């Protein structure tokens, strides 16, 4: 399943790249892209694991930068 989310508060391209790299390395993630320009995360993962992966991604985002938040569009 592929789904996209808004990443609130992302304010530099470097940080977007960092987040993209971090989320890509999470277990269960098939592909993740974070666009600094559109403030958007596109996440691809298996259907049955998706919620789990999304939670992990949200937790990682919080850890990297408490100001950022992944929200459903």
């Amino acid at each position, binding site marked *: 399943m592929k789904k996209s989310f808004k990443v609130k508060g992302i304010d530099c391209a*470097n940080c977007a*790249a960092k987040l993209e790299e971090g989320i890509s390395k999470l277990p269960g993630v098939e592909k993740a*892209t974070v666009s600094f*320009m559109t403030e958007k995360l596109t996440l691809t993962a298996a259907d049955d694991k998706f919620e789990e992966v999304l939670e992990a991604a949200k937790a990682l985002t919080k850890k990297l930068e408490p100001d950022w938040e992944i929200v459903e569009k």
Partner: protein
Amino acid sequence: MNKYLVLAVVLVIYVAVGHKILRKAFRNIKNGQIFDENFLMVVATFGSLAMGEYEEAIMVMVLYRIGEYFQDKAVAKSRRSIADLMDIRPDYANIEGENGELQQVDPEDVEVGTVITIKPGERVPLDGVIEEGESRLDTAALTGESMPRTVEEGDEVYSGTINLNGLLKVKVTKPCSESTATRILELVEEAADNKGKAEKFITRFARYYTPIVCGLALAVAVIPSLVTGDWATWVHRALIFLVVSCPCALVISVPLSFFAGIGGASSKGVLIKGGNYLEALSKADTVVFDKTGTLTKGVFSVVAVHPEGITEEELLELAAIAESFSDHPISKSLADEYKRRTRKRVDKGRVESFEEFAGEGVVTIVDGKKLQCGNRRLMERVGVKWHDCHLHGTTVHIAIDGRYEGHIVIADVEKDDAKDAIKALKNQGVSRTVMLTGDKQDIASDVAADLGLDKYYAEMMPEDKVHKVEELIATKGEGKTVAFVGDGINDAPVLSRSDVGIAMGSMGSAAAVEAADIVLMNDKPSDVALAIRIAKKTMRIIYENIWFSIGIKVLVLILAAFGFANMWLAIFADVGVCMLAILNAMRALRIR
């Protein structure tokens, strides 16, 4: 005592200004991702503080924060202007309530088959067919075309266009999620996921760059100091090093340029699905066209009426009446041309009898006369002496009671801008323009010669087209690309095989939008040259920014190493350069 008081005051101010940077830097260290611009700033200012350069430490922090503020503003503004450009999402649709009054509802809640009302001045919320009313539509948001399009009952309308002057009742044909406006928005937003090589390079670059600069700074601080013993000077120079070397200008301006280029292109009806395609398109040296529907209109029209003895109108009328009961496409072309020239409809009532010979033509009785109308085989069948036309295309011969009256030539005509399109491509430095077609040799050679194409290949099956494109890819210039332009019908394999697949979007054809890398919403071949121009401009801006930023930084680094640069210059090389790069990047949004 006094000394400690000063230090205390300085520290309070320093923390007040820089707490955000400090927090971020320490959090990054905790997360094991040490090197970024926050870290550089903290080390530089700590260094200044330690050396007793209080003013400098505070000023660096203040200026850095001011710079950051303007950067955020600039980025937010560019995000907004790109978003405005693509603001085609409709807010509501009007549906008729039980008592005939209009209700505003969310377009997502409107089901296919519902009739919606679109008032003058409103945006068309969903794709549909006009049931009632006529108006003019402003399609600029979808196509960049400034001429309004006149629509009437039975015409399709597309979401995202604006209804200018008439009240329209439209039967919805697609759910909101599949409407033209939604698809375009998704496509452009997804474009940001397909990052260009330059963008990937910058991300990788930033990852190695900061640690390397930190290492260099450490070397500048330690090595000369051990030799000369002058620690103060060299540590100070090392701090300047750190401030200069923030990679901001690159990591922000490069993605911004790509996005601005894609946004600007979409405002002209050119949808580019990613920075990587923009990059590939900027290097196109070969453009391959499909013929029918791409360079030509794909509909048959009358190109010549050659009567013998009677007038052109008379000959056209005879042919149109004779063919009026046939459902062959030729019959429609004749009727259209008759209507265009005389503003009359074909009078079917005059046909007394009608007989069709498949693949040949028709024999009818009209006004008591035997009217024979068809190709050479029909003429031979009825024993009429006929002669060929010098024009290529489908020739319809007409005879009355066995006497030859002349012929009409029907052909697929070139699009109005096809000739200019090829010329414009040449001006953009495209060295090979090629046409592939399933059509006959003589027709292909006419079109190719008329348009000024370098090469053409006729009578090609779809798989031949793939092979030909592969051949062209094998012989392209070093570092160049091959673009294929098709109308999306039967072209999918070639579109995906070429380096850049460009589809004529013919607003609404989902297959074309899906298969291609770039979609031309206007169906104009000249937009290929426009797309290449946009791609080249964007890539030029990107490289300008890369070289400009790196150049200034390296220059200031060298000056700093030899003691010719102070902290002010360092701040300029960081924040100032970043601002300039952002302003330059925004130029990609503006397309003449």
